[in-house]
């Protein structure tokens, strides 16, 4: 599993560590971990509806934060559970330019008959939030307010 939940980091909320060899893999995995909190069977989300996401942020960790936040937004605003179909991230450490993301997500409206509901995610917090590169690739630590 490219993500694992961290039981010691929070009592009332949900914390996880996500990994990816690339930034795209990391971002996609972090959303899978968030989605898994809200429904127990995310693989049963049909791809009937499609949404595009375009973000530009001054740094990478804000890009991840707002990417997750954007997907949570669709859950409330349109009742949509989305899975990432395509994602491109442009970021170069040296050039000082903003980090950019373009993604296409597909999914369907929440249906308790199909989706086994878990716990609603209210927000992505900054508590212990981090995105770092190590010898195994990229690693993010995220605490979700539920």
């Amino acid at each position, binding site marked *: 599993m490219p993500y694992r939940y961290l039981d010691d980091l929070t*009592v009332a909320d949900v914390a996880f560590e996500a990994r990816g060899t690339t930034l795209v893999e990391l971002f996609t995995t972090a959303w899978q971990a968030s989605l898994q909190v*809200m429904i127990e069977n995310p693989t049963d989300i049909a791809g009937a509806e499609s949404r595009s996401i375009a973000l530009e942020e001054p740094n990478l960790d804000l890009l991840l934060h707002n990417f997750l936040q954007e997907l949570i937004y669709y859950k409330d605003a349109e009742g949509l559970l989305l899975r990432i179909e395509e994602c491109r991230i442009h970021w170069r450490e040296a050039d000082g330019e903003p980090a950019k993301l373009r993604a296409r997500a597909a999914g369907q409206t929440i249906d308790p008959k199909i989706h086994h509901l*878990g716990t609603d995610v209210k927000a992505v917090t900054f508590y212990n939030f981090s995105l770092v590169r190590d010898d195994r690739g990229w690693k993010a630590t995220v605490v979700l307010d539920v």
Partner: protein
Amino acid sequence: MAPAGCKKINEYLWEIPRSFKQGMQVPVRIYAGKQLLDAMDPAVFEQAANVAALPGIVGYSYCMPDGHSGYGFPIGGMAAFDSEKGVISPGGIGFDINCGMRLVATSLSWEEVKPQIQLLVDRLFNSIPAGVGGKGSLQLSRSEFRTLCEKGMKWCLKKGFAIQEDLDRTEETGCIKDADASKVSEKAVERGYRQIGTLGSGNHYLEIQVARPENILDRELAAAFGIDRPNQVVLMFHCGSRGFGHQIATDYLQGFLRVMQSKYGIPIRDRELACAPFTSEEGQDYFKAMNCAINMSFVNRQVILHRIREVFSEIFRKDPLDLGLHQIYDVTHNTAKVERHTWEGKQRNLLIHRKGATRAFAPGMKGIPKEYRAAGQPVIIGGSMETGSYLLAGVESGRQSFFTTAHGSGRTMGRRQAKKQFRGQDLEKRLRDQGIYIRSASYAGLAEEAGAAYKDIDQVVQTTAAAGLSRPVVKLVPVGNVKG
């Protein structure tokens, strides 16, 4: 476990000195007996100490007996800031702005309700959407939603979802002033405008409860609050401002991070403690947007009460007021409000942040409904779905904490650990065997809310009483539960 240097003030009050962490402006004060103190996770003390370092804090950084670690402030955290020199911080309020509790009386006894309990819970479950992304039945335009955010429960009164008494018996009469919908993003509106009348999930619930004679702890105050007959049935529910409040907190948290250090020179110790001076443009904008979420949440709980009245009326074939469905009180436990308090002999306007903490005004204080003025403000402390909840009253000795008390029983077990230990289906059956009929949108969510995942509510409430923060009036035990 409390850190070294934590000093015992008395049996129910502990102090962490300013020397604990660099930058602390005031000490931390924790209301707890030794057992509750030892059970608190270490992050509680760190977080309360970070709060103590925020500019303009007055008195102490407080933690209530139900405290546990959160993000930014601990849950159960309270801090007062000078309204001129202090800051406002979304992390001191929480993402679920005006998450709160409402308690509603009935004139029915448990003997009268018992034959209908399954039907009642089933109908309530169907009428009040719960769970992930739940949508309400109200069809509102975005502009109407912006109006209700400024008007609060006055909007409900106009639309026929409330009676005047409901407003009178709600903190801030269900309409906090200084709410300006122009300070709210379109995104926040999009997240919230279809969620009026919904419970949400996590620890949000709607319970049918009974006030058993042996659980009436103060007969006179109970009668003053409308609990005056044997085995009286009441309804309690817990929910907040849904996606609307979550988005406002998210929007402003990020905005504050951009200016906190660069514009206002406030060091960022924890990004969840992002803040801005209260009098600054950014601080005032957040305050006005946050007040919209406070009002939206009051409306949310009011529409839920309206649905409850419809369900009871339909099942018992009587007007809801003939069934005694009168609101006892509605309290918020995630807010920042300007209040006037005496501190060190001086009257001061203070911005009181309560995050998982409840206002508990003493008898005679302004802001309490006139029928309760002599009794003190009703305080509602929700427990787990297995163990029961409490109605309390504010007391004069609450002055020590700017009239603030606990809000719940407080988690001690992580959600995943609870899911490993309990199965939702087993829990549902066990509760039914105990006489608690439950309907939940999520078995996984149900397991997370098992009684054993929480502190002992009796101990928390007794601590608030022993510490002089609030007076227990009635313990209410659940017989039916709709769980988000």
